[in-house]
């Protein structure tokens, strides 16, 4: 069960990466499709935060992958985003980026440092016998570790909330 779910999380992360890149392109061109801005961006951002939250809880509580300190900091950023974005999606609050982007940016910064430690274990020092931050519990497709997936999630949320903000221009 767990290997299948890990693969699903990896594939979803790849999809989120595609969404983030697509969103950046739309923002750069200044032409965001109305359907994406009005109907898809915030629900999709909510879904990304919810899957990240559920996934991290499954991996720690069911699969037994103990979260390290840096994992917890990323959780602190990701978990409230599920509610914040969910409420914003229901209320069509397109100014939620003012709250969501700073939180997601902090989470993304922690995820980047976590990835650096994973790739350079010497930077992390010796391994905590219970929950070392340098351990790679999951590594899908050779590069998608848990903090990498979290980073993609945070970036996708940032892009999608920016896509949904009121100032964007409709694509014709």
């Amino acid at each position, binding site marked *: 069960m767990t*290997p*299948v*779910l890990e*693969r*699903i999380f990896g*594939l*979803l992360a790849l*999809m989120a990466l595609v969404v983030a890149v697509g969103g950046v392109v739309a923002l750069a061109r200044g032409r965001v499709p*109305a*359907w994406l801005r*009005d*109907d*898809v961006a915030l629900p999709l951002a909510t879904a990304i935060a919810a899957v990240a939250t559920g996934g991290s809880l499954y991996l720690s509580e069911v*699969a*037994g*992958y103990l979260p390290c300190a840096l994992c917890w900091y990323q959780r602190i950023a990701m978990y409230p985003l599920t509610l914040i974005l969910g409420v914003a999606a229901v*209320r*069509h*609050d*397109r*100014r939620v980026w003012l709250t969501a982007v700073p939180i997601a940016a902090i989470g993304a910064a922690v995820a980047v440092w976590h990835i650096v430690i*994973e790739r350079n*274990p*010497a930077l*992390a*020092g*010796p*391994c*905590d*016998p219970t929950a*070392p931050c*340098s*351990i*790679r*519990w999951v*590594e899908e497709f050779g590069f998608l570790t848990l903090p990498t997936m979290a980073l993609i999630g945070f970036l996708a949320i940032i892009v999608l909330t920016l896509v949904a903000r*009121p100032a964007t221009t*409709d694509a014709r």
Partner: protein
Amino acid sequence: MSSSTTSKRTTSTPDGQGRQRLLLAIGGLVVLAFIVGIAVLSTGERGSRVTTEDLAGNPAIEGEPLAPGGQDQPNDPEVGSQAPVVTGADFDGTPVTIGEPGTPQLLMFMASWCPACQEELRSVSPWLAEGGLREDVALVAVSTGLDDTRPNWPPDEWFESEGFEYPVLVDDADGSVASAYGLTATPFWVGLDAQGQVVARAAGMLPVDQIQVLADAVAGGPA
């Protein structure tokens, strides 16, 4: 929420909106089903594998356990203490003893899932294979932190793949040997002199030149 912070629906009719949302929802479900299908088909069944219980040793520990340490080497209160004598076995059942007076020993506590241990073993094994360690010092690895849910399992294959040819004492599933030696983090080094007394403990990676210094210290001087 004020009207300025909420969107105004731009799609022409309620029917049109509903149809668009339905299509988006169906599209989302199709993509999700596709992902699940790919995941199921691309994840092979993991065959029967060695478990922690299969691999864990049953070492006998005699003597007072050492207090946790290794983080503050110069002020380690256990320097000079008699180390516990542990009688256990290698992965293949060959008896291995640590802490017994007779020959100065270097003990290298390793957890296979620990990335720092992986780097340490990768750098130490070639040096050992080239005869880098002085002959009057015995080096024994202790395989601890056994956990079959963690990466780089099982540890016996890991030691073999790194070309490590020194004895490996296998800890039990509770890490009793590690606790007896006061392990606080891995890798964890312990130097014992010929009387079986602690000369130094160090948590973290040691470069080869520091291992040589430690070997000289346990042997009582340079070779």
